[in-house]
């Protein structure tokens, strides 16, 4: 038998040969002085190196901590609770690595943001808070005043593309807070303080989640922009067919009745939005701020959003007022319109659940009710 290779001998030392090979190597070594010598040397070197490497072994006090603890630290430190914004940013980064910085990409984003913001902007007067086109995981709210005259003719969905609903959400009445909680998968809270004259017998209903898909139609958008005289927006071909997907989780809605007054509210786990990976949110923001026709006030409000990915823009038609409020430490926004029936709405977020409450009651009563949710 020819003498053994170093690799074979080394594998032999570690028992990493087939059993038959182990036997034949052993047999060879016992009859071959050279290989026996080589084997000893390898063994000695391996042992001494291992003894050094064994210094790099945790002492009792250096043992790893509990993996759940480390995971907790990881979450806190790294990803800010897996917010959809960060998930999106992760996807953006992936694609950004692949794409080069070309002019058309930024133009696409511009158009996308313009369209998206227009979608959000024009809700029927007086029901801003109830109209959820949610953008990203909501941690904060920023009211943005938009004057219909900023854009002469607001777009309808038909002007932009095609909207598809995933499945028709099924709504059903439930008879108790507990039943509602079970249905929606989070703890449902109801106001314990109600305005005068209200009966503490709410109607509660739950609906299961659904999703929406918005697919942009380039031709329609271009026609719309031309029709309203917006120039300077360069729409690339790949906007055509680009799809945004929104997931709206299960929701609960409740309503109370009083003397000719109403108080309704709802809660939902934060809706999420999937946008095409080449949508650069930061850049979109910059473009939106340059959009012609935005009043200074609107620009200032938009500029004040620092966590673009975590802030829900709440459109407030001019004629309504809004202010920041605190609901037991959670940041929220209160919107009120100054029409004679005086309705207001408050939106806030806690622990990834978005809450809303509205009614034609006084602001004080509304806030008291909101703060009494449990």
């Amino acid at each position, binding site marked *: 038998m020819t003498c053994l290779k170093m690799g074979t001998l080394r594998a032999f030392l*570690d028992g990493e040969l087939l059993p038959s090979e182990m036997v034949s190597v052993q047999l060879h070594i016992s009859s071959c002085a050279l290989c026996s010598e080589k084997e000893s040397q390898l063994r000695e070197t391996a042992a001494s190196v291992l003894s050094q490497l064994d210094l790099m072994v945790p002492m009792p006090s250096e043992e790893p901590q509990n993996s759940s603890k480390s995971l907790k630290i990881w979450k806190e430190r790294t990803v800010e609770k897996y917010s959809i914004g960060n998930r999106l940013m992760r996807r953006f980064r992936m694609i950004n690595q692949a794409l080069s910085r070309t002019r058309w990409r930024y133009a696409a984003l511009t158009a996308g943001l313009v369209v998206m913001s227009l979608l959000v902007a024009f809700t029927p007067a007086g029901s801003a808070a109830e109209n959820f086109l949610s953008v990203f995981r909501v941690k904060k709210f920023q009211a943005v005043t938009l004057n219909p005259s900023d854009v002469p003719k607001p777009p309808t969905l038909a002007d932009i593309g095609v909207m598809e609903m995933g499945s028709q959400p099924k709504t059903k009445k439930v008879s108790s807070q507990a039943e509602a909680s079970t249905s929606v998968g989070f703890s449902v809270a109801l106001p314990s303080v109600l305005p005068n004259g209200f009966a503490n017998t709410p109607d509660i209903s739950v609906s299961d989640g659904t999703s929406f898909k918005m697919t942009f139609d380039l031709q329609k958008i271009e026609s719309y922009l031309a029709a309203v005289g917006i120039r300077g927006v360069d729409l690339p071909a790949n906007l055509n067919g680009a799809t945004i997907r929104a997931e709206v989780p299960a929701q609960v809605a409740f309503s109370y009745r009083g003397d000719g007054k109403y108080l309704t509210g709802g809660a939902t786990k934060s809706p999420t939005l999937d946008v095409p990976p080449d949508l650069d949110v930061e850049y979109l923001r910059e473009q939106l701020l340059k959009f012609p026709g935005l009043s200074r006030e609107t620009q200032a409000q938009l500029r004040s959003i620092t966590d673009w990915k975590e802030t829900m823009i709440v459109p407030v038609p001019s004629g309504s007022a809004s202010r920041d409020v605190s609901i037991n430490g959670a940041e929220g926004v209160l919107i009120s319109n100054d029409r004679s029936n005086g309705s207001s709405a408050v939106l806030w977020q806690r622990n990834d659940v978005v809450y809303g409450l509205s009614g034609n009651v006084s602001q004080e009563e509304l806030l008291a009710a909101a703060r009494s949710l449990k």
Partner: protein
Amino acid sequence: MASAALSTSDALLLEGVMNSDERAFEALFVRYYDKIYSILFRLLGSRNESEDVLQEVFLKLFQHPFRSGGEHNLSAWLYKVALNEGYNHIRAETRRSNREDRAQQMNDRDLRARQMSQDPAQEALLKEKRLVVRSVLQDLSERHRSCLVLRATGFSYAEIAQVVEVAPGSVGTLLARAEESFRVRYVALNREGGSQ
């Protein structure tokens, strides 16, 4: 072998991670935590640094755009990342610190903080020895370093082959050479440092 079943569910979990399923990621975190920590400790010899780099490794997992539906050897990938990140950390720490002040090189607040330790002299000695090992490992080629660390951590030749991306039959040779490199370098370093 157990790892075949494990790697199937690895694939499922990875799919979950790509679909932004938090629980899938958490399951992988918990599954690989101990092994990754062991590998890193072999490289770094320090608890704090091992924990820090471990966080980076899992961040890389979270961020990496695995192709969906593709064949991924997740464990090999993770171990490779751990070895890379560990090495990068060593290099960064070495660059950062003053050569004369090697005591600074190991960010080991734990060891320093434990005043109640039995034998501070013993501790200091251990730390110094670990620093030498770390330096030697740093000077080796990537393959040699990986081989040694993985073998010391208890990986089989087959497993090492997957991480280092060589034929399983080549691991013996690689390991033997790695050990020889280590030995030579170790002797040289000790000679250099001897006069201190």
